[in-house]
């Protein structure tokens, strides 16, 4: 039997992306961001979550995509080592099971802009889902 991988899908504009479920701690629907002076533009601000400080990242800005955070958004909270990061996305879809064999390297016809994020893609029923690497997102 083929190995199965669990992903959480989400949207940025009309792009479908996903993260490894193991990386995801929880999903929030709002937060009070507090700006950090001098922070890079893609850092929307910090917010508190049960006594922890989470760094909110505007994922569109991080990936260099157009558009602002809308009135409705979702925050995917991930925990990496000692740091907590909230990725702000347009909306969050479902947890899906993917056959590992469907996860492939970035095809040549996908724009170069996804390369710095160590992205891979998932082909399912003609759809393409981009699977960026969380570690790459957090790299400076």
């Amino acid at each position, binding site marked *: 039997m083929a190995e199965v991988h669990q992903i959480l899908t989400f949207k940025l504009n009309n792009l479908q992306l996903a993260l490894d479920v193991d990386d995801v701690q929880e999903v929030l629907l709002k937060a*009070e961001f*507090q*700006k*950090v*002076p*001098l*922070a*890079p533009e893609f*850092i929307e601000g*910090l*917010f*508190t979550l049960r*006594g*922890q*400080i989470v*760094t909110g*990242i505007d994922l569109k800005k991080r990936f260099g995509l157009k558009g602002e955070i809308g009135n409705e958004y979702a925050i995917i909270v991930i925990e990496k080592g*000692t*740091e907590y*990061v909230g990725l702000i996305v347009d909306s969050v879809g479902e947890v899906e099971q993917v056959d590992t064999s469907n996860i492939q390297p970035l095809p040549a016809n996908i724009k170069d802009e996804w390369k710095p994020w160590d992205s891979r893609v998932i082909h399912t029923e003609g759809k393409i889902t981009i699977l960026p690497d969380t570690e790459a997102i*957090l*790299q*400076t």
Partner: protein
Amino acid sequence: MSDLDKAKVVFVEESLELLQAIEQEALSLENQTEDSDSVRTIFRHIHSIKGTAGFFGLAHIEKFLHALEDMLDLLREGEINVTTKHVDVILDSVDHAKKLIKSEEDGLSDEIKEKTESLLTDIQTLSADSSETADTDKNDSEPGKWLVELQVTEEIEDQSSLNPIEQLLTIEGTEFTFVPGKIPSLSEYESSRIYGSWLIEIPKSGADKQMIETILSSSDVYTYNIDPNRLTESEDTTDTFEGAEAEAWPEEVLEDEEEDVFGDFEFEAEIVEDDDQAEVSNEAESHAAEKDAQPESEADTGGDAEETSVSELLDDGEKKSIRVRVNTLEDLMNRISELVLNRNQLLQYSRGKKDGQLSKYVNQLDKLTSQIQESAMATRMEPVGNSWIRLPRIVRDLSKELDKEINLELKGESTELDRQILEKLSEPIVHLIRNAIDHGIETAQVRKKSGKAETGHVKLQAFNSSGNIFIQIKDDGRGLDANAIKEKAIAKGILSQDEADNLSDSQIYSLLFEPGFSTKEEVSKYSGRGVGLDIVKRNIESIGGQIYIESEQGESTTFTIKIPLTLAVISALIFSSGGKKFAVSEASVFEIVWMNDENTNLLSEVNGQRLLRLRDSLIPLIQLDELLGLSGDHDIDNKFVVIIKTASATFGIVVDQVDEIQEIVVKPLSRMLHNIKAYAGCTIIGSEDIVMILDSDGISEMASIDDVVDENIIKDDAAKLIEDEEDKYLIFEENNNQKAVPLNLVARLEEFDRQDLEQVDDDYVIQYRNEVLNLIPFSKSTMQRVGDTVPALVIQSEGQQAGLVIEKFVDIVETDLSNSTISAKKGVLAVDVINGRTTEVVDLNWFYQRVSELQVARTIRQQHVGSDCVIFEHSTFLRNHLVHVFENFGFEVRIASDITELEEASENPPSLWVISAPAYMQHREEFTDGIMASDGMKLAVGVDQAPEIEKKIFDAWISDYDKDDILNAINQSEEEVS
């Protein structure tokens, strides 16, 4: 893991600790060869390890250590003298024993086995003779015969490789004895190998040592030792363990020692057994696993963990510590950090509530939390000296190798540092010391020529300063050649000629931290390969530290490592700027200046840099809102200047508002924010506010103010307190002692007529300039000593004024007290001699406290003037106490000492009933409707929890008789009524 295995793990750890201790002793032995205490200690430790090794059946270790022990025995008995060679062999043996202990017996490499043999030979040689040359010809303890031990180590592919052995056989009288070794299982068995060794006895008449040597050296399939006679003896004794012991030890010592060794063991094993989940065993297991996996690197890094408890363990031979997994500690620390946060939130909440009972409990919680936090913090702290234990050895080896005489001085070993940080610092420090010896210190000849002492000096020092820990490595070597560094950097293309010309010396020195930079021409084994300083810097920066270089060419080089904010919880000053709150470590805050109209004249500007003249220094100012790109008027009028002092600079941050000093939990910043130099971390204040913690050094770097003013004369904090602009003091006499107060704190000196004074408790009030002035006697007896005229110092603070009653005014003097002895006595700042008399400089803080207490008391009194109360209490003592309390609150007090008096009182009901709970309980049934129906407020005292029915009767109740609690209770119910 069986119990035996667990015990074995403990054996490994303990033996390594003992070996580490031996190393220390051996080093001190060298400096002081007559030190038989050291020899005895080494002997004892070796004996302990040997004994336990025997217990576990580790015969190879036992045998090896036995030989060493024999040598030590001779040294101990004074039969031979300690020489450098002995120390060398002890040190080598320690290293080797570590390896032996860490590896499994059957996993011993040939290399290790060979080393065992060669060390044994050395030990024999040194045991047999004390003479420096150790001439082997004198070694024949068994006259007439050479004893050769020979072990075939290689595969015998060609029988002729054993020819030399046969050749020995031709010598008449030679005897061969085959000693079987460990024979492997059939699958591993190789027929071309010989599993065992020979003992060959050769009559001296047949051959001399040289000849045997020549014969045997013609083949290399075996290793051999000539004349290992003591060894063969000791081999015999390993079987008769008892006998060997008796030989080496007087009987009573032996018994003690035995008990010691095994006593410790049982203790350790017990801990492990008591709790299967015990961290102890987990840690031990993982330790052992690590060691198995990489014995080499473990040996290199020295395993700080083991070294930690050595001194405690050995000092008095009893265990004062247990091992706790670092993760467990970390976990505890994190939870405590959360607790602190929670406590802060609760504190803030309770302040808003004005609930006396709540505040009381919260205050207790506050205190406890701080104490817990301190203790937990202490568990993580370790003296830096613990990780310096290895250094003398490293320096010794290195100076021998390089043929340089080095004196290593260690200072401030007891300075404590977070253990994690300490571990990370260990390697960089070793590296810097190696650097200092290899690059810094010149050879003896060169030093002599330049008029220096031949022995080079390397000083490693740790100390605390302004909330940071500093570690300095200083050598008195050749110093750094700025020009050479510059040229090399240009040659390597690290910077251009133009750039180089504009650099200051310290900037040039910091080029040494560039990757791939090395100034020493020839590469040595120890340093000079151009990898190193950049890694040192990276390591230090990874723990949030910084490193600087200072140097004087031809004189010295100093590396300074600064470790900031190492603790998870710090005391911080909170302030706001540009509409946001910020925090800065309180330790780096020197003082705060309010820029009101009076001191705008202290401002000046040089080259666009605003400066504040503060006493005798010029302090550059940084506009925080501007620096951080925040909105704001970027102005300074009526704002506050927070003066920050770091190791490299003193500067002022202009902020809008100063809030408070608070304990905060330092939370690390996300990696993505690390590039911003301004921040050291962040924290949560109150319920939700996220506050950035400023990094003082980063801020000064961003504002590039390092070089603006480097001559800031900032004195010690304590000296600052008593420093006066004009150094004028008011002197007065009190009970035949002379006291002083800084004159600038005294508004006026007045003399009052005693008749005008009104007494309130121990203090007095007087009508003064249309106000009521509180008068506080300097001491309780002051009023008895003053006559009809009462001298008082009128002191102003925060818009309030009060009078300090003194016995006798003496003088106003001008004197410099900045070098006075700082006093530890409460209420006294410093002590100095003024006009030939010892004088205490009074700390006015307690005075201000009294003033504010009085203020509160007066307000209460005013509230209750004209009110009356009835106190019902059987106990005379408590009744008197309550009378006193309520009179002070301004009540007119009536007493009911029994139920009859109470009923009488109810005919004319007071505005407040104070009923003691015990008295009430006793007369519960007799409480008349008259009392209960009266409008007066009813307060129960001395009751823990009021039963339902009493709740209907009483308006308020408190558990004790405390003045403050009573006041809170009254105030609260008065508020409710209104």
